[in-house]
């Protein structure tokens, strides 16, 4: 009886996720005339695509690392502070999303432009600006899971560690960090994957000089209208999603590091 309740979910899963995946796979594995080919997949290894993928990996890795380095201490601070009332934190980090994504990223462009208020940094139209945009747009996806994992840590565990003579750094390394792993893992995937595949951020902040794999895919679908190649490259992107899912499955079985 209860199982019937999952029917609409399964329908959406099928129609909204699995069938579309199948369609992408179909396009990705055929050429314009409809004949089977794996060329669209192998195309990722050719010079220009590989270069773009390499740059994407590098930049999204940097963005993820920076997000992690920013979010972890933030989680520690918020865990203790009175501000750490749950609703309020979620509120601070979700609120910017009510200002439209395209506009928010455009605002960074305005700030960083040569004659803009932050123009002296000289980072506009460089990979650095793109990383900044990624960190800005996806930081909430790192902060919230880490924060959520941290506030779930039982304070008596920490007290016990101190009572047993642990130093601050030991408590941090041996108690808090291991217990935050589910949050870290889900935060890392939630930042890494969208950074890896973005095209809007690199377009707006990279000045057209930073060519990521997302830009190539987008171009295949919009300007060049080679849907087969675009689909093939998208399929390659999905490898990274599968890897992320495997990580989550391993470290965050119970969904403890969810962002909410």
């Amino acid at each position: 009886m209860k199982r019937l309740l999952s029917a609409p979910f399964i329908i959406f899963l099928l129609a909204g996720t699995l069938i579309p995946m199948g369609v992408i796979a179909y396009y990705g594995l055929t050429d314009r005339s409809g004949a089977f080919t794996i060329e669209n997949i192998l195309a990722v290894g050719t010079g220009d695509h590989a270069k773009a993928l390499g740059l994407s990996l590098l930049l999204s890795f940097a963005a993820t690392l920076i997000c992690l380095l920013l979010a972890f201490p933030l989680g520690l601070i918020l865990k203790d502070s009175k501000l750490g009332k749950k609703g309020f934190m979620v509120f601070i980090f979700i609120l910017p999303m009510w200002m439209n994504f395209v506009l928010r990223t455009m605002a960074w462009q305005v700030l960083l432009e040569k004659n803009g208020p932050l123009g002296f940094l000289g980072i506009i139209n460089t990979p650095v600006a793109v990383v900044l945009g990624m960190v800005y747009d996806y930081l909430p996806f790192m902060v919230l899971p880490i924060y959520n994992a941290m506030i779930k840590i039982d304070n008596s565990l920490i007290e016990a560690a101190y009572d047993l003579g642990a130093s601050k750094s030991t408590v941090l390394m041996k108690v808090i960090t291991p217990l935050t792993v589910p949050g870290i893992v889900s935060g890392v995937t939630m930042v890494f994957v969208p950074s890896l595949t973005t095209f809007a951020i690199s377009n707006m902040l990279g000045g057209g000089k930073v060519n990521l794999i997302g830009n190539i895919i987008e171009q295949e679908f919009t300007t060049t209208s080679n849907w087969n190649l675009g689909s093939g490259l998208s399929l390659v992107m999905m490898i990274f999603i599968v890897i992320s899912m495997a990580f989550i499955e391993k470290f965050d079985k119970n969904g403890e590091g969810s962002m909410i």
Partner: protein
Amino acid sequence: MKNTSFGLNKLIKVLYLIVIVLFLYLPIGTLMVLSFNSSKSMTSWQGFSLKWYKEMFTNDELMEALGNTLTIALWASIIATVIGVMACIAMSAMTDRKRSIFMGLNNIPLLNADIVTGISIMMSFLLFGISLNYGTVLFAHVTFCIPYVILSVMPKFKQLENHTYEAALDLGASPLYAFFKVVLPDIMPGIVSGFLLSFTMSVDDFVITHFTRGAGINTLSTLIYSQLKIGVRPTLFALSTVIFVIVLLVLVVSNFLKGDEEEEARKAAKSGKEYVYKGGMSTKKTLAIILAIVVAMAVAIRFTPSTPGEVGEKGVVYVYNFGDYIDPELVDAFYEETGYTVVCDYFDTNEEMYPVVKNNTADYDVICASDYMIDKLIKEDLLMELEFTKIPNIQFLSQNIRDFMEDFDPGMFYSAPHTWGTYGIIYNKELVDEADFAGDVSWGILWDKKYAGKVIMPNSIREADMVAAKLLGYSMNTTDENEMKAITDKLIEQKPLVYSYANDNARDLMIGDNASMAVITSGDVLYAQEDNENLAYVVPKEGTEVWTDCWAVPKSCKNYDGAMAWIDFMYSYDAAVANFEYLTYAIPNTQLEDYEYEDYIEGPRVLSEIEIVNPPEDVLARCETLQNLGPEGDDMYSKYWKEFKSQR
């Protein structure tokens, strides 16, 4: 009790928090400031003004996009919440193994790149012959909202004490009653946060909407994106500011309400009385307030009569055009003059319009398309011939444009030009060596090391290639492999000197003195000069691209006479003037030659004297039109473009 906190110095902690919050809210503050800028430019401040706030309320398109954004978000999050909660109930009864499979599948849309989700859903719809419309956007939004609901509700189920539910059943409650009275209150906070998160994600989404929306369905995100062709209008900043402030107020107020409740609980605890837990009242309150506001806004927008309120007796003409590419007031004027009601739909690029017309997914009567696309549409037999006897005003079409039309519509059977222009170099007189621009200018100036880091090039394949091709003396429509290689090498050579590759915002960057020169289309020049009088325009001696955007009638047309009337109306004096003043793009209409334009630099002048709008014969003689090269040609250009782009 020992201090369990991780004691860094308190000051450092506070500073750190402040820095992070500043980082998060700096761009938002910037947009708010820009919404009060009296200039259209994003890069230069020209005084305080409230005009964008006024314009916001009178802009029907904007209000419609806002309405769509809110109703889609509302429906998507309601549907996703119901489905998600039902799924959670079902999953809580499953074995661990089965549940983890479902949770894994549930993660896919969350982890999947937006672009892949959007494209895959779009392709599925098209494959199954479902045309894109409001419903497809809603479907896609429900799809990506469900995971958020499940992720926030599922943990609550795990914390649930199962025996309270069983106890209720033992005491004779029906399963449904027990669910609503025992389970629901406990999972309510999860439902509320899932709902709010869904709503926020739906409002914020751009990529997925971009790919799954049908013609004429705009949300705020896609409206902004479609305005990039002409330049984002600050009304959007104003609207975003208003939305942001409303949400901020709601959340702050509800946070206060929550505070009161906790206070109450603490007092009750102190006085020894038992505090009756109100089952997540505060979150319910938040939700209620937000819902009420959203519904009120959506309803207000839906029922605001848009003019003209009723369909004219002669029926509706469906116009499919680039975003913001006519003076919006002409729609009403056309209705008053002819009795036809006009419904406008928008696209951003020719490439986006093409599949819609080809697959006939919507029945448009008139479309606007660029020269090379007209050529493609004619060759694929997708256009109807125009009956020029029904377009008497076509007599005002300028002769030089008729000549250019030979390249894409020989004999002029299928199209009637709307706007036209050339590509050239806009430069800032203060930021360049005047001697360089004294005589004939070559495209080669863009390769001059003196201007390293001060040059803006187009960020589109054909236009960037055109610049290099002209410099090398090739045709801009070359399909010769060796010439393509040379063009690509030339562009790669230039790359270190380029400030940015930009289409939409090149004009804005020039207004804000961010670069010395940019490749730009002539139509943008008058607009830019309005805000920066140091700007000037030149067409290089090697020649350039001349482009024409034309009206045409697709085979799907249902109201042919209406379509003819629309095109005829566009050639009337009043419409031509209105379009010119609104767009500052050249309108190929001989009646405009004597029109006196308030030139921002030189004062009032008649249009025929403004070379930017009306290039002299010798300039036009050096121009070439862009041609459709077919799939093989497109693939070759794309291949070399990628090679150029991936060079660092």
